[in-house]
């Protein structure tokens, strides 16, 4: 059985800026991997590369055993077409720091839209699925509300429902609670915990060390574009070996 995510010596450059400096990462099926580290360490860039919002400059990236963004024919690499990349992306759900809900659509409309446009589901099927997902995140009574009428925590839960309705095999979370008022963080983390318990493969970039300790199977500490330390929460958070990791947790805990 192949790993769900296999990142091999991935580099990412923005002009002269070397953001990822040879990252290797394996995430097994059903595993929850939490990326921790200071701002600018490349955590967000790494997960944005995994669903091809950014193109990598070196290395290989496999999701579900499939090489992302490229095809190798007789030892030569060819870029995939936009259509092929879109198909690869549809298997990966993504939740953003700033929610990015579609403001001109209701909560229900947000969850229905891509099901109709990308998966070509019928209106009835897409709406039924949207009802189901919104109920799961505790928003059964908010389906007809526009994003502007919802709190940040509710908006982020709609965003999670929107991603889940696409039947992803992998969910990426890019600092999902960083834009929330402290009292709203819990409701989003609870939804994510329930999702982890259901067996979803997840990669989470966050500053919530408590969440990492409770939910993560694998904690990865990144600094300056590279993975510094990895292991179970007990190893990395509570008994870090690398001085940079030690320094980081000494400050945040």
């Amino acid at each position: 059985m192949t790993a769900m995510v296999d990142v091999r010596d991935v580099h990412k450059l923005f002009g002269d800026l070397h953001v990822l400096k040879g990252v290797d990462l394996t995430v097994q099926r059903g595993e929850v991997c939490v990326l921790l580290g200071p701002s600018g360490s490349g955590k967000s860039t790494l997960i944005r590369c995994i669903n091809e919002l950014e193109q990598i400059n070196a290395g290989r990236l496999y999701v579900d055993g499939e090489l992302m963004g490229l095809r190798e024919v007789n030892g030569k690499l060819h870029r995939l077409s936009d259509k092929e990349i879109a198909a690869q992306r549809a298997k990966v759900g993504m939740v953003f720091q700033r929610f990015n809900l579609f403001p001109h659509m209701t909560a229900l409309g947000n969850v229905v839209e891509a099901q109709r446009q990308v998966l070509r589901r019928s209106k009835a099927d897409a709406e039924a699925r949207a009802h189901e997902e919104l109920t799961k995140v505790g928003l059964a009574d908010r389906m007809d509300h526009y994003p502007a009428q919802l709190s940040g925590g509710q908006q982020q839960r709609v965003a999670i429902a929107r991603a889940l309705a696409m039947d992803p095999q992998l969910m990426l979370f890019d600092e999902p609670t960083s834009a929330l008022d402290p009292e709203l963080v819990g409701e989003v983390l609870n939804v994510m915990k329930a999702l982890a318990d259901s067996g979803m493969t997840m990669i989470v970039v966050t500053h919530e060390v408590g969440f990492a300790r409770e939910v993560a199977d694998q904690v990865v500490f990144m600094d300056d574009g590279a993975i510094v330390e990895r292991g179970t929460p007990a190893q990395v958070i509570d008994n870090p070996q690398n001085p940079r990791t030690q320094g980081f947790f000494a400050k945040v805990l």
Partner: protein
Amino acid sequence: MSRTPELIQARPVPRPSVWIWAGIVLLFAALFIYGLFTNENYRWDVVGQHLFDPRILAGVGWTLLLTVAAMLLGIVMALTMAIMRMGTNPILRGVSWAYIWFFRGTPVITQLTFWGLLGVLYPKIVLGIPFGPEWAIDVNDVMRGGLIAAILGLGLNEGAYLSEIVRSGLNSVDKGQWEASTALGMKRGTTLRRIVIPQAMRVIVPPTGNETISMLKTTSLVMAVPFMMELQFVSGAIGNKLFLPVPLLLVAAIWYLVITSILMVGQARLEAFYGKGFDDERPLVRAKGMSRRQQAILTAHTVRDTPNLDVTP
């Protein structure tokens, strides 16, 4: 129930300059109005006779038709060009750039004259499938009367200006909207049509109203084609025949003012509709006639630019 405090009732700071300016403006206004009534050369009797002259009314009709047709062509061209300009195909980006460069870079009167002379350059345009059937179009026949040339000239010129407005509207939509759609597997075209354009309308529509008012007046240049039925030309022609150009110019000016005034009211409504709440943190009250969807777009602040960009030729 809390106690109502004694409200402050203070005299405002005196501003004598307001009264001085009021005096100056009133004086000049009175002099001007006096002149309007006493100066015989205005010939208000002739203005009155011709204000509802059927030829003038027909001119108003043609002017309105030209405005609407040219704006429609302009909007279609603008959307096409703006989307091409933002696309991934470098050839189409180049085509769009060249279109805007040419049509914005030459005077509209030159373009109108050119369209009028198209039949001289290309008397016949032949469309055909190689080795198959052919269809010939007689350009002079199609362009007869100048209406088509006038609409083409005005519309293509307008499209270049509007495409910059459309482009700034599309650019003003938050990048996160593109990312969310992309991450959901939506294609560029779908994202534009379903997600970005509906939100960009807030920025695009108000200045398009401004352009419509501008277009109404630009139609007076189509005598360069020549197209000789719109308001400015018709009133000028009548004035020349009577050797009384001033009263007929006044007739034209009155009609232009009436139509622009109506359009301005419409534009102000549109701006209120699309711009409401732009400065407010959270507009809890919906403007009259505003859809929930529109309110939601405004409240979300996913569109950042001011809708009142002034782009005038």
